[in-house]
């Protein structure tokens, strides 16, 4: 790790200014991934702009019933927040399914979104990786890729996004608020992360210097039944092999609203729009869930060692959706 300058920002404007003044700077939140990557030599910032003292550490209920989660709210506080647990349980469950108690105490909401893939070739600077060094190649495609993407991958990159939290946000129609020199904008959580395409070095749609300031949970999904489930190699403290977040509302015996997102299958949380379309207005039966999952996963293009992810994701989706069906509707 090379030396770097350190700037502690006291306001958003100061943060942006400091970022602009230091080419090669990075914003520093909880640091649980950034410091890790700096030690590996994957990230080599010239300066860190510490944003942890900005007043973005609150969860606020807005008048319209939506919830505003400051980007610096720690993962553990987000998961424990009564309004989150009661209103958007999939989000709390997703956060608690990730990392460890210690890491959740340090990691922030914004940082969780911006964490980078755990592809071992990305993390090893002695090996080729198009995400880390564009044009250098991909070690995973022919190498160890059991954990890698089956949906939306490109010739250049098969990495999977590691976040659990982001999967829940995608399913719940959350939005990400970004602050930049051009002002404030909002992006749908499901569109915040990119597919790799020809530019795997870009994980998200964030522009240089932009800062995640908040995540917004819509009033529309407040209180709707939602859940998150994850499969992994250890019973705890391991990244997902596959995961599913879903929200499901049933009215008059048919699906009135559904949001489904898969984790660990793609370069971003994979919002299952095809499955949702198939379910909307249909009876919430196990067979319907199976058909919907199959429809979505038909696009999967597994590699030598990750074909298991397709049935795993299917089973998880069917299981989570089945559990969300109100008792009297269960068929």
């Amino acid at each position, binding site marked *: 790790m090379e030396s770097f*300058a*350190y700037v502690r920002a006291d306001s958003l404007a100061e943060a942006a200014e400091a970022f602009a003044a230091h080419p090669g700077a990075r914003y520093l939140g909880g640091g649980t991934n950034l410091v890790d990557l700096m030690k590996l030599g994957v990230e080599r910032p010239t300066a860190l702009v510490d944003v942890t003292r900005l007043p973005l550490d609150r969860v606020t209920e807005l008048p319209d019933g939506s919830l505003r989660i400051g980007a610096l709210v720690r993962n553990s506080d987000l998961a*424990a927040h009564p309004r989150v647990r009661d209103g958007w349980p999939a989000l709390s469950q997703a956060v608690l399914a990730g990392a460890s*108690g*210690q890491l959740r*105490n340090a990691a922030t909401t914004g940082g969780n979104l911006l964490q980078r893939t755990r592809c071992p070739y990305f993390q090893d600077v002695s090996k080729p990786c198009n995400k880390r060094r564009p044009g250098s190649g991909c070690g995973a495609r022919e190498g160890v890729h059991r954990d890698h993407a089956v949906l939306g991958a490109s010739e250049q990159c098969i990495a999977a996004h590691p976040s659990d939290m982001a999967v829940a946000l995608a399913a719940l129609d959350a939005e990400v608020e970004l602050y930049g020199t051009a002002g404030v904008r909002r992006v749908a959580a499901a569109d915040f992360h990119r597919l790799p395409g020809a530019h795997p070095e870009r994980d998200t749609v964030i522009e240089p210097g932009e800062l995640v300031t908040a995540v917004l949970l819509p009033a529309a999904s407040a209180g709707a039944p939602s*859940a998150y489930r994850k499969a992994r190699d250890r019973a705890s403290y391991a990244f997902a092999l596959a995961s599913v977040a879903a929200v499901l509302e049933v009215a008059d015996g048919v699906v009135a609203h559904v949001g489904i997102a898969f984790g660990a299958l793609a370069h971003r949380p994979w919002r299952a729009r095809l499955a949702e379309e198939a379910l909307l207005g249909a009876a919430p039966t196990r067979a319907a869930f199976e058909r919907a999952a199959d429809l979505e996963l038909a696009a999967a293009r597994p590699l030598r060692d990750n074909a298991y992810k397709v049935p795993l994701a299917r089973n998880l989706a069917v299981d989570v959706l089945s559990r969300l069906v109100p008792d009297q509707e269960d068929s």
Partner: protein
Amino acid sequence: MGTEHGPRSSPHRSDTTLRVNGKPHTLSVDHRRVLLDLLREDLDLTGAKKGCDHGQCGACTVLVDGRRVNSCLLLAVTLDGCDVTTVEGLSGDGEGPHPLQRAFLERDAFQCGYCTPGQICSAVGVLAEAEAGHPSHVTDPSAPSGRPVPLDRDEIRERLSGNLCRCGAYPRIVDAVEDVNGTGHNPRT
């Protein structure tokens, strides 16, 4: 712009003040230095251990402002004004060891001892988090929010899963935490 740290002669160091185990320390900190190395190399507090240096084992767990964290991933310069408690400071000014330290001894909840300070600091955090109503992955989602979470063995296991122990002392560690939490049974031996 924000506070640019470090004297002009050295843009890569900053004066940083932390309170460690109740005692204030002001140091000129290399920006690259993480809290773990500050404790071990600057203050000679070697109780917090370096097992992986990447937040993957928990041996470096300490309490910062009362919350358990991996000290290997926290840049020390960011902690100006913070209150740090390490395994050396758990007993405070009290006489004798912290109840968890005593329980670990009584239960033989360790072998090589290298993960032990982290396990103990983590357990201190677990007890506080459960008391504050923080749920875990195994907490029933329908349990009421904001009330203390009862810690059964599955809860303790899940909450301590960020602390690896290669000697395999896990069941005894759970025993020790149960003892202090008041939910344990009496030692068998």
